[in-house]
C-alpha cells in the first residue's frame, strides 16, 4: 500500500477530491526552499557561481536585483545585448551575463527537490 499525506481545502473530501482542491499532496512535487544566496558578478566578468553540493540537479530560480525591484531571469535581451541566463549542475548554479560592462547582483534560490517527481 502506498503511503503519503494529503491535506484538502476546506469543504473538500480529502479521500475523493482532485489535486486542484488539495492544499498538499505528498505525491506531487513541491517547492521547498533549500537556500537563498546573494551572488555578485563584477564588471568584466561574464558569470558567477553559487555552490550547493546537493549531489543532484535541483530546481532553482534566479532573481536579478534590478535597482530597487527584483526581476526573475532568464532575461531575453538579445536585441540590446543584455541577456541573462543560468544553468544548474549537481554541485552549483551558474549565472551568465551577456553585457559585461557593469556589475550585477542576484538572489539565487535553490530548492530541495530535483525536477523528478
Amino acid at each position: 500500500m502506498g503511503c503519503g499525506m494529503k491535506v484538502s481545502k476546506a469543504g473538500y473530501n480529502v479521500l475523493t477530491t482532485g489535486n486542484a482542491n488539495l492544499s498538499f499532496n505528498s505525491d506531487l512535487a513541491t517547492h521547498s526552499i533549500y537556500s537563498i544566496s546573494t551572488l555578485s558578478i563584477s564588471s568584466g566578468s561574464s558569470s558567477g557561481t553559487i555552490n550547493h553540493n546537493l549531489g543532484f540537479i535541483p530546481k532553482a530560480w534566479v532573481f536579478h536585483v534590478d535597482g530597487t525591484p527584483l526581476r526573475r531571469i532568464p532575461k531575453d535581451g538579445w536585441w540590446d545585448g543584455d541577456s541573462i541566463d543560468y544553468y544548474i549542475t549537481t554541485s552549483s548554479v551558474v549565472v551568465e551575463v551577456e553585457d559585461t560592462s557593469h556589475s550585477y547582483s542576484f538572489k539565487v534560490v535553490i530548492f530541495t527537490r530535483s525536477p523528478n517527481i
Partner: protein
Amino acid sequence: MAQGMKITKAGKAIDSAVLDDFYLHTSYPLLKVHSSGTFSTLIDGTRTISHNLGYKPFVLVFSEYVNDDGSGGVVLTSDYYQHDWYQGGATITFFGYTKIFTDRIEITIGNTNSVTPGAVDGIYYIFKDEVV
C-alpha cells in the same frame, strides 16, 4: 529536541541525507501562495498588482506571447510564456517583464513603436515567501 515532519519517497529512509528523497521536510519551507489571478487588456502599458507584504516575495507570471509578423505587424499568440520575453523584428520589438517591489508587482508589456494592437492575457502567483 528539534521537531518537524518528514515524508520520504517510497523505499527511501526517513534519515536519508539526500534531500531529493523527501516529499516533505519541514526543515525547509514550502512556497505558499499569497494571491493569484489573471490579467488582461495590457499591451503597451503596466499593470500594478498590490500585495502589501512589506518585503519582496516570490512571484510567477506567465502571459501570452506577442510575436512579430515580419512586416511590422503583430501576432497575438495563445502561448503562455514566462513573463520575461523579447521579440525583435525588423521594425518593431515587443517585450514583457515583471518587477517585484515590497508592496506590489508591476507587469509590463510594451513595444518600441508604442502601438496598441490588442489585449494580452496572463496569470500571476504571488507567494508568501520572501526572496531575502
